[in-house]
């Protein structure tokens, strides 16, 4: 189980403060959800937490070790344990589905037998519901298929820490149901999941811990019940807008 802690994290882009002095600790082995209105900095905070974007200031600790000062071995070990599902899938355009899947395995399991890799890839794609050819390029796939492959790519190395940036958007209901079941399976295990789901019902069902964000700041943390009943009106308004009004702009 991996614990992630943010300490005074600020991120500025083009003179605009996108993340404003965020200090947060995600409980290990639990599913944490970042909720907030669109454009509040959820995706950016998720990427900073995963070490994909270096913050302008502040620190990110992984099991007590500063992610930004990790050496190559420590960093590679952290990546081997973690997976990231991108909002726009972010599949490598010049590689086939199979090549997209095999590359993380080649990096983290160089000694793994080719047949074993092949077996792992096929079973993972089957688990997310991908049934098309493995030789297709991302440009030849539908949005839903891309999301499936993106989730499969993140899970193929069997991570214990999973970051998911709105994994179920732009996915048709049948695919969404299959992927949702998979996420719930992951939730029931000891995996640490940090995500920003758009589906309020899934969010309510899955989250063990929630962080409410507004304008780049974390205004409240706790369980869904705690943040819903929060005394702070700003938190309450934000949570009710995101989780209880289907037409709210929570993305």
């Amino acid at each position, binding site marked *: 189980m991996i614990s992630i802690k943010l300490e005074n994290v600020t991120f500025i882009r083009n003179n605009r403060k996108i993340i404003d002095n965020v200090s947060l600790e995600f409980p290990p082995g639990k599913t944490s959800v970042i909720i907030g209105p669109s454009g509040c900095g959820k995706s950016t905070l998720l*990427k900073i937490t*995963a*070490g*994909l*974007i270096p913050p302008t200031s502040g620190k990110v600790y992984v099991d007590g070790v500063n992610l930004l000062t990790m050496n190559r071995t420590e*960093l*590679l070990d952290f*990546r*081997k344990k*973690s*997976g*990231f599902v*991108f*909002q*726009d899938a*972010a*599949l*490598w*355009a*010049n590689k086939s589905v199979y090549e997209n899947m095999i*590359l*993380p395995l*080649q*990096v*983290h399991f160089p000694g793994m037998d080719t047949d074993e890799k092949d077996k792992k890839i096929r079973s993972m794609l089957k688990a997310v519901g991908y049934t098309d050819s493995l030789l297709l390029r991302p440009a030849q796939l539908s949005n839903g298929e891309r999301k499936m492959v993106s989730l499969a*790519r*993140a899970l193929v190395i069997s991570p214990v820490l999973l*970051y998911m940036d709105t994994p179920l958007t732009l996915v048709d209901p049948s695919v969404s149901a299959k992927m949702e079941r998979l996420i719930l399976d992951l939730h029931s295990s000891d995996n640490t999941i940090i995500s920003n789901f758009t589906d309020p019902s899934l969010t309510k069902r899955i989250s063990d811990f929630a962080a409410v964000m507004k304008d780049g700041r974390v205004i409240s943390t706790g369980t869904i019940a705690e943040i819903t009943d929060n005394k702070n009106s700003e938190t309450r308004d934000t949570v009710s807008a995101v989780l209880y009004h289907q037409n709210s702009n929570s993305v």
Partner: protein
Amino acid sequence: MLGRLGRWFIDYVKGIFYALGFFFKVIKASMPFFRGRQIGKKVLTMQILFTGFEALNIIALIAMALGAVIIIQGVSLLPQFGQGELTFPILITIITRELGPLLCAFIIIARSGTAIATELGHNVVSHEIEAYIASGIDPISYLAAPRFLGVTLSILLLNLYFNFFGLIGSFFITQLIEPVQATDYFRKLLSYLRLEDIASSTLKSLTFGIIISLSSLYYGFKVEQASTEVPQMVIKAVGASFVFSIIADAVITLIYYTR
């Protein structure tokens, strides 16, 4: 006004240090390729294929045409002044030392420099770079280093081919127009060709390769969010490649003639 100027200067100096840091990182990441198996080996192979092999036909065409023109002019014009032997020093100066490496560089800038900057820019915009990082793959090691090595190696090889086609291939073209005795031609060519010429040519193409690949990579990675930044950065990459290649050419030529 003064404050703005100061800020611009500080940013400029920071930019230079950032670029130098980037270049150093790319060169450092390229070293493991010489030691053993690398995950980016296939990327290196493909880069040599696209930058080197696929540019071979245009390089051959230009080199043979240029060489043939020099030989035909040389064997028909220079003997009138009693300087027929000058054909070979002129041929070697143009094909091997001066124009060959520079023409190869220009072709590579146009073909591969633009392609690399565009591809990397799009990789940044579509978050593919972040996906590499998330998968534990260092984009510098996996994307930049093989491209740096591939372009540099390709331009070195293409320069060699440019010389073969310019010095040897052009001879056969000349035979169709104004026959020249083969043994005499090759004997004289080999007696005028010096190791310094080959060294100068190789050094130039190596420098141009480093300049072109690093400029393209640097500006490709400099794209931040929008796809509209991509063409802007491609233009900058091409401009920087041209300018630094010409400056490097002038410096190496100066060193060659003042040694």
